[in-house]
């Protein structure tokens, strides 16, 4: 399941100290970068202390793992950065792909220029993270994503090459989580005092049971008792990642997914935002949730992708209607295009602005699209002619799909889809469609 990617960084990222100011240089690498874009951002950070603290927390997220797979734990996965439209966003995932974190530096959070816009991997090495912890509030820090001026490399200086076995789930998680974010709604807003009180009620250890965020009067707290309006949180101990940032935040907003499949915790620090999304349970990664599968049933023509790329720039709000008008695409076909494009790693979602933004993951499209085994299995079922539609009326489709040793019975009726297979029986559609339903839907589309 795991693929390998080699990051080639020309230099390691570093925080270098000068007399008048410090420079946080982030070395970047993208395997899909079309042209040589040496620098995505260069400028002063308005709140370097908070930004550093957020980046340290992000590095803690990418180094953490909450399931039982310590495999490749020691390898630090590099976060990705999207710079453009006056915003700089850092995104990363835990090893288990169950925790997603993002640092947003908003337009007022920096004073700098964006020579190019785009998305790239950035080198997060330990000395740099260590150095970040020494940034204080009174310091001037200049951030550069990529080198502004290409420096002449000294003789014998080696390009930093980092071979990272990139589990497919990491990229898959990055695409899937955006769809969860898009569905999430803000339910609670807490001030600093409430936030600290809430985290005081956090249970010790790693509770295996679900917890619920409930309100008692003005005071929020975590309770193990299921309640109608409580927000369900599985693997609550993962929220401890946020703890170092809590005393510094002015506000916390909580955005649960309507079916409680994920909860996003967004901390506000004025010009910087930190959001942490956790999956339904500690053993469940966003990667396996299959939320993006339905969007991928229909193929997107290549010229569409070209059109989107031509039309958009990094961090720009994605407006499908404008796209269809400007690029002359058939408006009907643009329906659900956001879902499809995010599943392809081309869009991110901003909870505060409530819209998708363009952000093309710095990985090959073929790599991203090859990551949906359920979709591949569905295609295999079709190829082997194992799907038979037995009834098709206006609002009901019945089908029989050959499984291992048995025939599965599938019913699609209105918005409901059901299958007799183990996956569906176990998860009841909560973790995306099973390969059998996908195959039937794909057959119907074709």
């Amino acid at each position, binding site marked *: 399941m795991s693929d390998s990617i080699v990051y080639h960084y020309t230099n390691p990222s570093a925080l270098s100290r000068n007399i008048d100011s410090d420079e946080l240089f982030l070395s970047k690498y993208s395997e899909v970068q079309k042209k040589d874009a040496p620098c995505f951002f260069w400028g002063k950070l308005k709140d370097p*202390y908070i930004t550093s*603290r957020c980046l*340290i927390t992000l590095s*803690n997220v990418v180094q953490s793992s909450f399931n039982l797979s310590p495999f490749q*734990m*020691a390898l630090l996965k590099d976060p990705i950065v999207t710079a453009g439209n006056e915003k700089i966003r850092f995104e990363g995932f835990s090893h288990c792909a169950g925790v997603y974190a993002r640092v947003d530096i908003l337009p007022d959070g920096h004073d700098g220029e964006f020579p190019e816009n785009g998305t790239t991997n950035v080198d997060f090495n*330990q*000395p740099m*993270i*260590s150095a970040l*912890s*020494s940034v*204080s*509030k*009174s310091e001037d820090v200049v951030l550069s994503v990529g080198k502004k001026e290409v420096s002449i490399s000294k003789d014998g200086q080696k390009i930093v090459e980092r071979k990272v076995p990139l589990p497919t789930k990491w990229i898959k998680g990055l695409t899937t989580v955006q769809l969860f974010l898009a569905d999430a709604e803000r339910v609670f807003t807490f001030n*600093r*005092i409430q936030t*600290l*009180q809430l985290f*005081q*009620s956090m*249970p*010790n*250890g790693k*509770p295996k*049971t679900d917890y*619920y965020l*409930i*309100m*008692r*009067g*003005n*005071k929020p707290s975590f*309770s*193990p*008792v*299921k*309640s*109608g*309006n*409580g927000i369900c949180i599985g693997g609550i101990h993962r929220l401890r990642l946020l703890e*170092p940032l*809590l*005393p*510094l935040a002015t506000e916390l907003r909580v955005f649960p997914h309507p079916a409680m499949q994920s909860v996003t915790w967004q901390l506000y620090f004025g010009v910087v935002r930190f959001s942490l999304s956790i999956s339904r349970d500690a053993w469940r990664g966003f990667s396996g949730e299959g939320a993006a599968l339905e969007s991928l049933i229909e193929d997107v023509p290549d010229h569409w992708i070209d059109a989107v790329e031509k039309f958009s720039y990094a961090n720009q709000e994605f407006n499908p209607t404008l796209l269809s008008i400007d690029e002359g695409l058939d408006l009907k076909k643009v329906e659900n295009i956001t879902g499809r494009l995010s599943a392809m790693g081309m869009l991110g979602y901003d909870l505060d602005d409530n819209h998708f933004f363009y952000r093309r993951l710095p990985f090959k499209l073929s790599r991203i699209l090859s990551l949906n085994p359920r979709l591949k299995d569905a295609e295999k079922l079709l190829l082997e002619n194992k799907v038979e539609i037995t009834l098709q009326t206006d609002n009901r489709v019945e089908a029989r799909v050959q*499984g291992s*040793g*048995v*025939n*599965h*019975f599938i*019913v699609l009726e209105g918005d409901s889809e*059901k299958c*007799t*297979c*183990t996956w*569906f*029986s*176990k998860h*009841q559609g909560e973790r995306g469609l099973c390969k059998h339903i996908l195959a039937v839907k794909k057959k119907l589309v074709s």
Partner: protein
Amino acid sequence: MVSEQFSTIVKKERIDDLIPFLKSLSKDEKKEFASALKPIAKEYLEFKTVASLIGGSTFKQKATPVQANIIYGAAFTCLNRKDYRKLDAGYQLLLQSDLLDKILSWHCPNWFSDYVNDISKQGWMPWNFKYDHAMLLAEKGYLYPSDELIVRLLPQIMVEQGADHKFRFVPENLTKRAITLEKHIWLIFQFETTIHGTDRWHQFQNSNKDVPHWSEALKRCSTEGMLDRHRLLKESILATGRNFNKALSGWFVDLFEHLEPTGQELLGLQRELLNALSSQHGKAVKTALNAIKEFVEEDEFNANGFLENAPILLSSETKSVVSTSLVLFEKLLRKNGPLKEEICVAICQAFIHNDENIQIKAAKLLIKYHDGSQSVTNEIIKYGDSMLMSSKKLLHEFISRSHPIQESNISPTNSDADNLVHPVPEISSLDELIFLASQAFDNNDPLHIDLLPAALVNLQNEVTGATLHKFEPALQRAYSFIMNDWPSTMGYLDHLLATFFVHVSSVLIDRFPDEGTSLKQIHETFKKKDDENKAKWKWYESRILDLTTWTVASKDTTYIVHKAILLTAYQKIKVKDQMPLLSTPTHQYGYLDPVVLVRRLARYQQKNIAPENYDVQLAISRVAPFNHLPALQEASETLKGELLAVLQFVLNKEINPTPPFTTPSLWIMAGVTKSPQKTYKEFNSFFYSTLPPSVFTGNVPWKSFTEHFKTTRYNYEKRTNEEIPAQHNILKLTLPPWPTIWQAPEEKSAGVLSKLVSLFSSPKKSGREEVYVLYEFLSLKARFLSAEHNDIQRFAFLFPSNPNPLLALVASKALTHSTFSTETDKKIVTKTLEALINLKFHFTEITNLFIASCMLTSDKTVRSFAAEVWIKGINAAEIDSTAIGQILGTHLSSEYAPLKRFTDLISSNLVKISHAHNTALEGMLVAVIENLPVECPIGTKRLLELYSEILSLNNSSVISPQAKQNLLRWTASSGLKKVISSLAVADER
């Protein structure tokens, strides 16, 4: 030819011939040899099981150490990096310096340096690969060591193993190479290493305790001028905040302290010390604060920088960090500087802590230094809700008195919406049945075990030959549950349900033999697999069981209830009887709408069919606490005879049982469901009245005490096991003897004749009734629980109006010790509480015992659950807090659990919920205090502080004479004097 030559070298162990041989190979020969080498390497290096002479077996490789080295050496020169890495996974050649040196001097592959550097990227280091070794390679130009490699090797630089196999610390190694102290040593401050573990090696001859070898060596180097002392101090304090793990960060703190910085040095490190305040580890912050204390009053002190850290310092979970910070702020305030207002605003953040000492300290500072500026007053008001009463009193002039707890602050978990019991959707079509069948064994919903048999009975006529194949996946799934490994969410009831479904599908196959071929094939496949397993393994017992004889290993009779219902359903399908099961729940948590029950019964009476006794009993047990009036009305119109009388008795509060009592089991079940604690004199003549009342009430005798017992321990001197006295504090419940139900009752009563006999024979008190009351089946016999926790909710939903007897079982099994002995014990208690919180029933002594014991368990989730049950119970006015307090007091007196668990629970979960809760909490605390012994347990001070807080909140005072007496006795303890005197003040008021 080449390979034969090499084989000889290997065989004859001619290691001296290796290098001349390798040198003689041409490029093409090398290539050819590389592929020939692999099978030879496999033959010699592969580990194989070898029979040991002393019996058993062992893993061994064919190669001798010399032969292995010859192969590694050859592979190193001929294979590419990837293949070599695979072959020499243990870095054997790297550890053979002589051979490696000889080879490298003649041939150094271009990948060698990267290969060695990559060692640092893996989780382990090759044993005995030392810094010295790496530096020798570097000096000879073979290796360009990366920082990561150096830093992995450096912690062990001073550790050497002598010929006597003992480890020694050799500080001189640090100065062996100039580069070590000039450059490499600073890397340990940048990267996360295991340096903190090096000192802990007890193998050192001179180490009976942890000796700070490393710190001492570094200190010496700095004293002797070999290391820059200022840089050393600076780097060690910076390293404490570098996101390293707790132990390593603590080591750097120790190093910093070991270097004994002077006051002037500390002032020079001001920036770094302020930085360390952001460390995530309390120890680093504490040390930095103590260091800052030394110069906080100096003019050069960066007060602004310190103030910026106030949010982190004052919200720290380490109390000493908060209190030291307050001391520092006080020193700054004393200077009366321009930051007075900002500091006062910052100080308010300390009120987030529920600790009286901290809050009072902060409040006193504010009284002293707050000059009335609005920003400070506003901040104080913001924290009003989280202030303890003592702080509020001190700051009363700044906060309005209008901050009592609002009645509306009632937990939303107990809103009406939550108390609603939602109906369970009815399975009304074949499609729904098929999809239910395919997920029923997954334990997705505790009611599936009821819904599936009911739907199969109700919809059996809709299953036709043409639709039968749709059950294939469900049957395959049922079999895989029976045959495969046990998933963590599966209970024995899921196995039972799967077995039931397998039997039902056999009936359907018999009904449609032509169309049922595919289902039959599934049956045969699994049957064959079962037979094969049986033939293969002696220990294997057939997993495909007969439904009638199905049982669990522990012989727990509780399972008989569900089995009886499933057997009834199976019989109905077998004889094509479509009369519905009576006991199928219509609502969540096992509740059955009485109107629906009346309608189901009416169908039986219309056709003059007698329903199964256990089905009726279960239906009565599940009667929901709503719709009683309409059900009574409909029953009086559509039912007749004893069933009507029983239902009227259950549903109408005012009605007493009226004879004739033809079926005593139904009457007794109706009586228990209606009012579990009440004994009806009308039932005195029943056999069941001879049963211990605890069978129905769960009120069994219990005590928590210190049990003395004997345990066996191995005596290493005498080399034998011996018995030694031991003691533990336990909770013991005396349950009535387990029911001696050896044969399933449905088998006993299977015959028509026996049914008739039971219907017409008059009840007799002396002999055993043919029919059991369902409560009699309850048992939890297994010595160690296994999957029962996955069934417990379904057991609770059999008796939603009276789960108390089940609570007695769970408490006796899983709450013997307040610290859970196994994970399954914890799970069964958690699941029971989860079920309990949704049920509406009468709380009795056993309920209180269960809740009180849960409040003291080692698991925070269980304690929080118990707290939630209490909160809900107060809202519904159905819980007696004083009774819970008495049990808690008894438990704490016998040291069943530490008092801290209870006081933590009060401050985190029980206090300030609402006025009603505070009043109830006061009653609970009074009862606890009354029941504590003269020698009060550790933690009583905190308990009394909380009691004082509650009294202030409730504007109340100590009234109970017994509590007063106990408090007076405790004044002898110096630690309690102050808090008890504050309670006396409350008393006077």
